[in-house]
């Protein structure tokens, strides 16, 4: 069996009386393309908030490359190699695209030296994702699609081992979805493990090697895309009883 990069054991999270996550366990293998799906409100975003450090899990443990990270502040998790994009893009509004990318480059990949030539590295990433010609623009000048690409590019600039893509494709056209998929495939080939959270089924199904399905804060299924699609529980979660 392949090496586990991320392991989540019995994680629980409550908001007041609302159980957002109940006893969720799953793992992601090194260099895996992993899909996380579930109906709206099933706890996907809560789970990745717990992984990235925006929220603290209440029960259970979260291990990244064998290290317990449940109590770490978010920035240290990023430096360990977990990067995420936000469902609603959160760019640094006063900075150009290039400068947006320099932040993660300077604070994670080069956190020790702070002196490397991050601008050219940032430019390379912008080039990879197709934003190089807009490097000097401010985020406010971008279209929605480019904004999502920037969100992804910024996560890439953190040079992660694990990239969590939180609905990077919502609202994009079929062609644009393919464009983003292509980028993610390429990143994965380059050795980055990817967790994809997505409502666009076609995208998750074609991308993921393995999928976990959440419903009402609990894990209800796990398996290959084929197994998941034919799972009765999943059908019930999506289509109802």
């Amino acid at each position, binding site marked *: 069996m392949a090496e586990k990069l991320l392991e989540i054991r019995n994680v629980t999270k409550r908001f007041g009386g609302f159980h957002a996550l109940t006893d969720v366990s799953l793992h992601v293998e090194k260099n895996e393309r992993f899909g996380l799906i579930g109906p709206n409100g099933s706890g996907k975003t809560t789970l990745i908030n717990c992984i990235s450090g925006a929220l603290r899990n209440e029960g259970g443990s979260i291990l990244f490359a064998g290290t317990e990270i449940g109590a770490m502040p978010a920035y240290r998790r990023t430096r360990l190699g977990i990067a995420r994009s936000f469902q609603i893009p959160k760019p640094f509004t006063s900075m150009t695209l290039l400068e947006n990318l320099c932040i993660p480059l300077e604070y994670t990949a080069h956190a020790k030296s702070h002196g490397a030539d991050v601008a050219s590295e940032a430019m390379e990433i912008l080039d990879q994702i197709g934003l190089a010609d807009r490097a000097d623009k401010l985020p406010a000048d971008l*279209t929605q699609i480019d904004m999502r690409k920037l969100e992804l590019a910024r996560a890439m600039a953190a040079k992660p081992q694990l990239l969590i893509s939180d609905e990077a494709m919502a*609202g994009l056209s079929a062609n644009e979805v393919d464009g983003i998929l292509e980028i993610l495939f390429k990143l994965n080939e380059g050795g980055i493990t990817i967790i994809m959270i997505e409502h666009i089924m076609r995208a998750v199904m074609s991308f993921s090697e393995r999928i976990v399905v959440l419903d009402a804060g609990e894990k209800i299924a796990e398996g290959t895309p084929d197994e998941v699609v034919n799972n009765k529980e999943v059908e019930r979660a999506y289509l*109802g009883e």
Partner: protein
Amino acid sequence: MANRIVVKNLEAGYGSVQVLHGVSVEVNDGETVVLLGTNGNGKSTLIKCIMGILPHTGGELYLEIDGERVDLAGKAPEEIVNLGVALVPEGRRLFPMLTVEENLLLGAYRPDARKDIDRNLAFCFEAFPILEERKHQLAGSMSGGEQQMLAVARALMSAPRILLVDEPSVGLAPIFVSRVIQKIQELKEKYNLTVLMAEQNFNQAVKIADRGYIIVHGQIEFEGKDTDELRENEMVKKFYLGV
């Protein structure tokens, strides 16, 4: 007198992202029509357009209220509410720091609803006894299912003729989903409402639907003239799970 929703070739989106690509939907007087599909396909966007929360960029959108045609282009949500349209919004959008009763009373804000306020409140408490028990409790402290009941009841307090329901099942345990959806049907019959409901939960939604549409990627992929057509399960599964 007839109350209808007519949507023709509607186009809408957020900024440069177009979400609806020529959607046509009709809801006839006294019908319950469901809008099916998984998240991110445009169900909520369509509801937002009808409510005036999001402007549409192309196509036609009008209501018939008591047989009279009202064009919705350029109308603000509050104006549309005052026409007799109520929305049970996605995520419920209650006033969490107000009591159950205060939430309900705010539902009757529009002038036409105020005159029947006592009758409607009594009816809401009859339909949802739990709300009467909890009327002095803060809305935010109730369970998800109770909150959804309150959201439905609050919409009814505005004495609507057309009821829009956006994703009533989100975040609810299965038992509550079926209860909420049954309630919507009961109330619809009692008030003779015209109902358009966006819902992902296929099997629950078709229980109360007269007809339905499946929306995929901002387009109507399938129109079921009755629920039997919709129950054509393999087809639905294809649209839902992308296989």
